[in-house]
C-alpha cells in the first residue's frame, strides 16, 4: 500500500477494499463478525442493525437528486444488505464556509422527504463549519438504524457456486451523470442519476424465507467491485453475460464515447441479488412490478473458480474476456 491516501483510495475499487481490509478492519474490526455494509447490534436474527455512510459528492446538486436525498437513500440501501427495515438516522453535517443557506435548505428538505416517505425518524444531528478554498459544499455522514425484516441470515458468507446473480435495474446512470456534470462534458443527453431507495421493492423479498442469500447495492466501483468483494478470498467466479446487462441507451453511448467500463461505473439505486437458481423466476417477477425494478435481469451466475480473474464477461459476439479489478479512475480516453 502506498504511504499516503490517494484519490483512488476512495473510488470503490481495489484500493478502497484493501484500505478497509488492511487498515480499518485490522484495527477496528466490526462487531459480531460482520463483513457487510451494515452490522447487527445483537447476534440474534431479530435484533437491531446499524450502518454508517459518509457522503461527499461534487456537485452537491445533480440531475436526479442531491447529496441530501443520496445520504438517506444510500443509508437505507446499506441497511438492506442485512435485510433490514430502516427505523431512522442520525447525521453529522460538515458545512463549508460560503455555502448558500438556500442550498442547505433544499438539501435538508430532500432528506426530510425521504425520511417521511419511509416513515423514518431523525434521531440526532451535529453541525460543524470548516473553511475551504474551493467551491463551498457540504459533507454528510449518516448512521442508520434498522430492524431485520425476515428471520433468515443473508450476506457474502452465504453465497455459493451455482447461484444466480440478479441486477435490479439499469446500470451506470449515476456515475455517468456525475462525471458529465463535474467535467462539464456538454453531452446533449438527458441523463439522470438513479439515486433511489430500494426498500419498497426489496422489503417483501426479505419477508419470505430464504429467497435471497446476499444483497448489495452496487455503488462506488460499480458491479465489478460487488463481484470482487463477494468472490475475493472464496473459490468463486462470477460469469456475467454482456447481452443481459440492463443499460439505458444514453448511458451506453456515453460510456462508449468516453471510453468508460460500464461495470465499474457507480450506481446509487441498483441492487445486486445473489440467490438459488430456483428462486430467480419468482424474484424477477416480483422486481418487475416496481418502477425501479422493471428492467431487472438475471445477469449471470457464480461458478467454482480459483483463478486470478474473478469476473468473466461473455461478450455479445460470443467471446469471453476476464475483467480485472483495477484501480484506474473513470477517466475518458483520448480518441
Amino acid at each position, binding site marked *: 500500500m502506498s504511504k499516503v491516501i490517494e484519490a*483512488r483510495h476512495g473510488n470503490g475499487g*481495489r*484500493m478502497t477494499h484493501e484500505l478497509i481490509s488492511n487498515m480499518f478492519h485490522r484495527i477496528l474490526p466490526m462487531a459480531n463478525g460482520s463483513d457487510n455494509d451494515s452490522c447487527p447490534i445483537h447476534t440474534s436474527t431479530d435484533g437491531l442493525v446499524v450502518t454508517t455512510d459518509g457522503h461527499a459528492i461534487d456537485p452537491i446538486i445533480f440531475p436526479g437528486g442531491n447529496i441530501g436525498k443520496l445520504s438517506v437513500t444510500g443509508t437505507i440501501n446499506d441497511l438492506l444488505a442485512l435485510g433490514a427495515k430502516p427505523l431512522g438516522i442520525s447525521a453529522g453535517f460538515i458545512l463549508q464556509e460560503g455555502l448558500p443557506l438556500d442550498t442547505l435548505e433544499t438539501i435538508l428538505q430532500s432528506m426530510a422527504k425521504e425520511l417521511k416517505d419511509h416513515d423514518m425518524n431523525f434521531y440526532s444531528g451535529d453541525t460543524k463549519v470548516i473553511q475551504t478554498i474551493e467551491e463551498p459544499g457540504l459533507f454528510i455522514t449518516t448512521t442508520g438504524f434498522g430492524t431485520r425484516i425476515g428471520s433468515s441470515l443473508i450476506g457474502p458468507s452465504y453465497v455459493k457456486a451455482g447461484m444466480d446473480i440478479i441486477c435490479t435495474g439499469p446500470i451506470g446512470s449515476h456515475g455517468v451523470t456525475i462525471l458529465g456534470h463535474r*467535467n*462539464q*462534458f456538454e453531452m446533449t443527453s438527458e441523463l439522470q442519476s438513479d439515486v433511489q431507495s430500494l426498500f419498497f421493492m426489496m422489503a417483501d423479498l426479505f419477508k419470505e424465507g430464504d429467497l435471497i442469500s446476499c444483497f448489495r447495492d452496487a455503488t462506488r466501483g460499480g458491479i465489478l467491485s460487488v463481484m470482487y468483494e463477494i468472490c475475493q478470498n472464496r473459490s468463486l467466479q462470477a460469469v456475467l453475460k454482456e447481452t443481459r446487462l440492463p443499460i439505458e*441507451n444514453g448511458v451506453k453511448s456515453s460510456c462508449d464515447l*468516453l*471510453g468508460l*467500463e460500464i461495470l465499474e461505473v457507480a450506481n446509487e439505486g441498483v441492487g445486486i441479488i445473489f440467490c438459488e437458481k430456483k428462486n430467480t423466476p419468482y424474484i424477477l417477477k416480483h422486481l418487475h412490478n416496481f418502477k425501479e425494478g422493471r428492467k431487472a435481469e438475471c445477469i449471470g451466475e457464480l461458478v467454482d473458480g480459483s*483463478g*486470478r*480473474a474473478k469476473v468473466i*464477461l*461473455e*461478450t*455479445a*459476439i*460470443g*467471446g*469471453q*474476456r*476476464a*475483467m*480485472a479489478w*483495477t*484501480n*484506474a479512475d473513470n*477517466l*475518458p*480516453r*483520448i*480518441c
Partner: protein
Amino acid sequence: MNFEVHRQAESNPKLIKVKIDELANLCTNKRYRIMEFCGGHTHSFFRSGLAGMVKPFIDLVHGPGCPVCVLPPGRVGMLLDLIENRDDVIVATYADMMRIQTLEGRSLLKSGKRAIMVYSALDVINIAEKNPDKEIVFAAIGFETTTPPTALLLDKIVKNKIQNITIFCNHVLTSPAIYGVMDLLDEETSPDGIIGPGHVSMVLGSKAYDVVSQKIQRPIVISGFEPLDLIDSLIELVKQIRKNKNDVSNLYSHVVKPLGNEKAQKLISKYFEVRPSFEWRGVGSLKESALQIKGEYSAYDCEKKFNLKDTHLNEHPQCKCPMILLGKSSPLDCKLFDKACTPSTPLGSCMVSSEGACNAYYNYGVEK
C-alpha cells in the same frame, strides 16, 4: 442504417461465428501475423472477446498507434517542470496524458489544480476566459485524429487574439511510424499485413496508404472498430497475403473517404509543419514523424514562449514497453507486468492508456 440497429447487427454472434469459421478455413496451413496499428483496434479486439476467438490461427501484433504509449516520458517531464517553475501556468489536456508517470512517480494527475482534464480542445478557451491571469498550456497529443481539433483551437486563438493560451504540441504522424516500426523488425517479427487505423484515415483518406503499402510491401486494410469490422478486415488481409498482394482496402468506407477530410487537412497545414525529427518511445528518433506549430504562430507555441528545452527521462530498466510497441514482446514477457506495473501504478506507457497493449492484457485478464 439506424445506429442502434447497426450495432446490433455488428454484434450478431451467429454472423461472427460464420466469419470466424471462414477465417479459420483460410488459415488451415499457416498462422498469419497481423499488426493492428491503432490502439483503438487493440482495445476493441480484447474488449469484444474477438482476440481470444482468433487466437488459434492469427498472431495479433499490437502496433505503436497509441499516442500516449509512444510519447517519451521526457515530454511529460517538460510540462511538470514548467508548472513547478511557473506558478501562473495551468496545463489542460486529455485524460490519458494526465496518467503518464515519470520514473520517480510524478504525473499531471498528481498536480492537483495545476492540471485540468478536458474532453474537447475547445474547452481550453473557457478555461482561459475563467483564468485571465493564468497561462493555459494545452498539451496536445495524438495522431492525425486529434490534430484537427488542435488546429481549430489554434485558429480560434489566433483569430480572437487570445493571449493566455499556448499549445504544447505532441502530434505525431502515422506513415512515418509505420515505416519506423517496419524498419526495426526482422523477418520473424514483421507482420504479414496491417490493419490500418480507422479514425486517422477519416482525416487522411484511404489513398494516403497507397504509397505506404507499396513501400513496406504489405497489404493494408482500413477497418472500423466493431467486432464484425475487425473480423472482415482479418479475412481480407489473409486473402491478400495468400495471393501475395499488397493492396490497400478500405472496409470502413462509410466513414473513410478516398481523399479524407480535406477541410481538416487544410486547417492542419495552415498552422502546423513537419518537425525535422521526433523521439518515439520504444522506436527511437524518427525523421519527419511529428508536427510543430509554424514559425509565424510561435507566440502560441508553448515550447517557444517558455523556452522549453528537450528533456530526456530514463525508463524503468526492466520495462519491456519498447519491445512491446514493436510487437517483438508480449506484455506477459515483462517481469514488471501485473507486479510492479499495473494500471494504478503504470511504470511503462503501455499500461497507462486503455489503448496500450499492457493495459488491455491486464484489464482483460489475458493469460499465457
